[in-house]
């Protein structure tokens, strides 16, 4: 079933009785050419691009819960390509280009909204840093513009521009950045993969990885054993437990990151705004809620909820940036489990087990990476070679110290990013 304006019109006139489920609910087959563990954004896009780009259709995505129930449904929906480090820069640039054609490619409304991202700065030094980053983004072929304080005041009239500690000096404007409807991204990739023959198997938890003589043979699940020649571990915050089934310890520690949404308000913030000095960022959803978040809670957690001190800190930063937000009631808060790597960049690589691949370490930036992560992971699993834009994200870079991907230049140890 294809979606089109004509179809919407026809269904509207005939009682909406012609819509069908977006994907099947198949039972697992005994054997597949490839299995992807994890039915989140990255796992679904991996399956989609394996089928679309590499013609691999005898594959399954195993999801222990339900499609869209993990981090892909627990983020702040921001899409951007404003990285500066060689490697990350190409990867996120590739991802943004995929985002730009995604809805047409998937025939699915992901509510992609390139409303622009403005990173505020508050000092001459920060302006210099923003100019440097802008130049890096332009060199990469993406867009960046340095805004003076008058322009920022015009674009974002509801912020407190004259805060004594953090007066707004200007902003780094990334016009092609924005937001996308996170659930629809998961559903769109799920539907696209399913249409190409991929089995999406929900309520199917992997309980073991079968390895013989250093070669992967399949997985054990709560719905029985499934054989496969290739297995990809794409489980974000749960990477530690899944890798342990293959006898691996990963350079990953799982942390909780919280986010919040207010009641619906009239349009008051047109862009994605980041307030780096307060570790706080915000955008307004199409329903009118201000969606905002901050920093990690900074302790290991799998609880999918955080504690009050971080909530308080984020609210304080929000009040500092936009005092009128204090009148809005917070409707919901949630937490996602972040697979934090020591250098703050992701890992996409083969493992020492033949046929077993790992995709992890997305830290708090997994959502914008969804299309390119799947694109590159599919390339890696299909060809055995890393895709050129993800070739630097090796698993062994921490052991050797060669090719560390420390975007923030804060060091390559846990708890620094």
């Amino acid at each position, binding site marked *: 079933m294809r979606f089109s304006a004509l179809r919407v019109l026809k269904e509207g006139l005939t009682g909406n009785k012609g819509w069908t489920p977006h994907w099947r609910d198949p039972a697992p087959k005994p054997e597949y050419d490839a299995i992807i563990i994890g039915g989140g954004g990255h796992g679904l896009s991996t399956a989609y691009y394996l089928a679309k780009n590499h013609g691999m259709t005898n594959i399954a995505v195993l999801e222990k819960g339900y499609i869209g129930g993990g981090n892909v449904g627990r983020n702040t929906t921001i899409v951007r390509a404003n990285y500066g480090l060689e490697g990350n820069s190409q990867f996120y640039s590739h991802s943004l280009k995929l985002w730009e054609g995604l809805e047409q490619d998937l025939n699915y409304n992901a509510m992609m909204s390139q409303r622009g991202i403005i990173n505020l700065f508050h000092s001459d030094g920060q302006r210099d840093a923003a100019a440097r980053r802008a130049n890096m983004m332009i060199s990469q072929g993406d867009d960046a513009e340095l805004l003076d304080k008058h322009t920022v005041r015009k674009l974002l009239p509801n912020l407190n521009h004259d805060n004594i500690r953090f007066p707004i000096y200007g902003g780094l404007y990334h016009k092609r950045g924005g937001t996308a409807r996170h659930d629809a991204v998961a559903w769109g990739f799920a539907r696209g993969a399913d249409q190409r023959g991929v089995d999406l198997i929900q309520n199917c938890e992997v309980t073991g990885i079968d390895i013989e003589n250093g070669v992967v043979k399949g997985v054990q699940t709560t719905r029985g054993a499934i054989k496969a020649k290739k297995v990809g571990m794409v489980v974000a915050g*749960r*990477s*530690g*437990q899944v890798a*342990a089934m293959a006898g691996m*310890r*990963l*350079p*990953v*520690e*799982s942390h909780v990151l919280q986010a919040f949404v207010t009641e619906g308000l009239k349009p008051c913030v047109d862009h994605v705004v980041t307030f780096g000095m307060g570790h706080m960022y915000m955008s307004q959803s199409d329903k009118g809620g201000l969606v905002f978040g901050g920093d990690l809670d*900074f*302790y*290991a*957690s*799998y*609880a999918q909820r955080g*504690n009050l*001190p971080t909530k308080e800190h984020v609210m304080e930063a929000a009040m500092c940036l936009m005092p009128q937000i204090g009148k809005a009631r917070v409707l919901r808060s949630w937490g996602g489990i972040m697979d934090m790597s*020591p250098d703050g960049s992701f890992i996409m690589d083969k493992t020492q087990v033949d046929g077993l691949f790992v995709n992890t370490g997305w830290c708090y930036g997994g959502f914008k990476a969804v299309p390119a992560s799947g694109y590159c992971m599919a390339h890696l699993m299909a060809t055995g070679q890393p895709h050129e834009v993800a070739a630097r994200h090796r698993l062994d870079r*921490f*052991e*050797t110290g060669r090719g560390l991907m420390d975007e923030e230049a804060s060091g*390559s*140890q*846990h*708890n620094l990013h």
Partner: protein
Amino acid sequence: MRIACPLCGERDSREFSYKGAALALGYPSEEAGFEAWDDYLHKRDNPAGPTRELWYHGSGCTAWLVVTRNTMTHEILSVELAEDAPESAQENTQGANA
């Protein structure tokens, strides 16, 4: 989350900062090689459940603590001074058996 400091009593978690897994109590020898240092510096068990970790009571008595905490629930199971703590949970068990 409140942490019961052995010296100060139960205090708000805001007074503490998190260092990471308690394996930092000991470290490999200089000759141990890349793999051992990689295990120590980067690789983590990252358990979903009880875990031993190091916290610093920076806004209190400035003691380093070994906190046993459940990462699924945030429940704090035990707290001891790092100077009294064995280097690993395994040694702890062996100590108890002895």
